[in-house]
């Protein structure tokens, strides 16, 4: 075997077992199967080219996630930059909502009675990008906080606070969904004055 074939064999043995995980991650980024498959191929080709940079014994799955995410956002760089600007405002908005109470009893009942997976996916995809990235990595791709921080290039404390806010926003949206879908009785109307135009 030549040296490059040895390297390829080593790469495939270490990295290919994570292909399904990378596909799931790519799918959560693209939300479209053909695009996700292209992204997975692109990720593995780039990973093989950079294989000499991989530290033996480190977390290969997290390394592949980092490459996958970087490839995805490189393509969508301009669009994401616009979203990032909005995130600062939305983060402030979410911080203000942290103090609001969610009806835990009602949402527990809705979650226990109904399959809300589609609603949870829609709500997660609808989160501001900064919150969505953290929620997806931790909740869907089983990354511990420190790995998510490495992948996103942010401090662990930021992962923790964004995750807290992401979950709070998801709770609100799922509660609204449960009311709208008739899974829960309509909430009592506010007694505040309604203005007429």
């Amino acid at each position, binding site marked *: 075997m030549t040296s490059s074939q040895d390297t390829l064999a080593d790469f495939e043995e270490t990295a290919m077992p994570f292909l399904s995980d990378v596909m799931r991650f790519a799918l959560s980024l693209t939300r479209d199967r053909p695009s996700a498959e292209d992204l997975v191929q692109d990720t593995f080709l780039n990973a*093989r080219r950079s294989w000499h940079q991989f530290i033996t014994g480190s977390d290969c799955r997290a390394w592949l996630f980092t490459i996958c995410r970087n490839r995805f956002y490189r393509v969508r760089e301009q669009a994401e930059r616009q979203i990032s600007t909005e995130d600062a405002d939305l983060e402030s908005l979410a911080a203000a909502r942290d103090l609001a109470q969610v009806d835990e009893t009602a949402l*527990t009942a809705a979650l226990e009675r109904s399959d809300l997976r589609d609603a949870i*996916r829609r709500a*997660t995809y609808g989160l501001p990008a900064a919150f969505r990235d953290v929620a997806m990595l931790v909740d869907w791709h089983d990354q511990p906080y420190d790995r998510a921080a490495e992948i996103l290039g942010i401090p662990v404390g930021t992962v923790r606070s964004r995750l807290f806010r992401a979950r709070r926003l998801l709770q609100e949206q799922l509660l609204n969904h449960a009311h709208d879908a008739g899974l829960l009785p309509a909430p009592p109307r506010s007694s505040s004055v309604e203005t007429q135009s």
Partner: protein
Amino acid sequence: MNGDMMDCEAVMRKLWDFLDHELTPARMEAIEAHMHACQKCQPHLAFRDVFHRAVTGASEDVGDTTALAARVRRALRAELSVE
């Protein structure tokens, strides 16, 4: 709660970390002990646990990736052959 145990406010602040297994074993045990004894906090843990399981169970289904793996292996070999 007595002085040896975490108080309710401290437990609430650490509840997501607890469910995500992001605490030291000693802190995990302290929260478990608190939850065992505190009826006020138990419903909050029950809610977050249900919510947590619902959210973590909502990840995309990737289906069979055999064909994709074969495609990626072909692409890796094709690229290597032209280097």
